[in-house]
């Protein structure tokens, strides 16, 4: 377990310069995610066009893993349908929590940079918080907690 497996260059870059870090004032969906263990708090905003995610953003505060993961999430689900985003959520869930499942990391693009998190069990919830929050927003729940 090398720290560089966790804090890869992409992660560090997205933490320093989070993408889509803003509110969408006229969002169709939004949800708050909270990780009480470390105090991470994120809000995810979604603008829909039919079944498609036309725009997605987040704000809040958190550790490098949770901020980078949220930033990568916004880049990867923008333009996707709700069903496609749900598919990505389940792939990410497996990537972060299952070491007995072979995942085609290359197919995940930049999201594959989070594969090192699996080796740091205390940090898995940091990486998955934004995905649970997006899921809650798409299912029109207002709040989600990873505890």
């Amino acid at each position, binding site marked *: *377990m090398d*720290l560089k497996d*966790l*804090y890869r260059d992409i992660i*560090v870059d997205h*933490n*320093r310069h989070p993408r889509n870090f803003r509110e969408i004032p006229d969002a169709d969906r939004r949800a708050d995610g909270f990780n009480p*263990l*470390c*105090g*991470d*708090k994120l809000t995810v905003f979604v603008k829909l066009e039919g079944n498609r995610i036309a725009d997605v953003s987040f704000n809040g*505060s*958190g*550790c*490098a*893993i949770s*901020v980078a993961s949220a930033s990568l999430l916004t880049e990867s689900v923008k333009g996707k349908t709700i069903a496609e985003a749900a598919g990505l959520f389940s792939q990410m869930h497996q990537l972060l929590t299952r070491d007995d499942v072979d995942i085609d990391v290359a197919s995940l693009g930049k999201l594959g940079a989070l594969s090192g998190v699996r080796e*740091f069990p*205390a*940090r898995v919830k*940091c990486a998955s918080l934004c995905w649970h929050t997006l899921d809650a927003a798409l299912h029109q729940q207002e709040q989600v907690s990873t505890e």
Partner: protein
Amino acid sequence: MSAAHSVISETGVLDVAAIRRDFPVLARTVRGLPLTYLDNAASSQRPRAVIDAMSHYYENSHANVHRGVHTLSQEATELFEGARAKVRRFINAKSTQEVVFVRGTTEAINLVAQSYGRPQFGPGDEILVSWLEHHANIVPWQMLCQQTGATLKVAPITQSGEVDFDAFAALLSPRTKLVALAHVSNALGTVIPVHRFIAAAKVRGVPVLLDGAQAVPHMKVDVQALDCDFYAFSGHKMCGPTGIGVLYGRESLLNAMPPWQGGGDMILAVSFEKTVYSGLPYKFEAGTPDIAGAIGLGAAIDYLESLGMERIAAAEQALLVYANEQLATIPGLRFVGTASEKAAVVSFTIDKVHPHDLGTILDHEGVAIRTGHHCAMPVMEFFGLPATARASFAFYNTRAEVDRLVAALHTAREMLG
């Protein structure tokens, strides 16, 4: 204890290298690096004397206490009650009847809430705490308020992390039925000048409970000199086992309180018509107690006394001064909690590096610290922070370990800052 001769130098200060050999875990490595254990406010480590006392008990003398006439039961009872006598002497309680064994500080406070507060508090009554409290000195009172209709009042703190005495005094009123205050803040290390607060409460005849979990391991505590009514602390923060702690209570108050839990060991006679309870302290100790835990706690007290609480306090204060100096050299580091009197606890943040990342990066350097809200969310909220990093020192820590902490923080800044 024989260790005393080898761990105190001729000049009367602690020989830290010798002390460290008393703690088996301090010899281990983490990821190939020496363990630098700076999470003592969460839980301290155990000297061999404590581990051996518990093993010896299990290997030689275990039986249930206060029951049998057989040899083992008598030995176990003597060891268990011997530990109570050590606690009494350690905190200078008047009598062993005032020393109730519980699971820890949390249970001690819940006991007072439910047995002292619940039968007599009602709407209009107030319980006064401070903004600095650990959740264990907040939530039991909130539950009590829900049960009785009483109100929780909170004395504010200052930017340096000290309880505002004038505001506290202004909140004392004829409605105040109990003051519950930390002796030392777990999140910030602030030593609260409790004499002053207790004196103000006494003027109004208000009883005072002190949460001493963070005080007892680091300073001489004398409950009679403090003149407090209840004092709660845990074994595992003072080199003793987990699962054992102490509620000290003034005898007159404990006598008037009903039992908290019912069961064996807390009764004199039981029939379906009427049960007669035991006297103090057994009235509050239903069921088979943590016998080995109490014996381990007694051994921890022996160990701490062999070093001397004054010498422990001096060693830790010297470490605190050094840590403050060294940490102040790190760009972007902000101290959270700068009270004039502190235990050896340093809470801090570093610009652009979240405490949670600090915790992971430091762990890779073998350095164990606590990151998060430290079970004191109102304190974090007061400072507008989701979390801090907290290094907390014990007498077995060294300047070299402070240096390793500082080096690891530089690494974290380079990675993420």
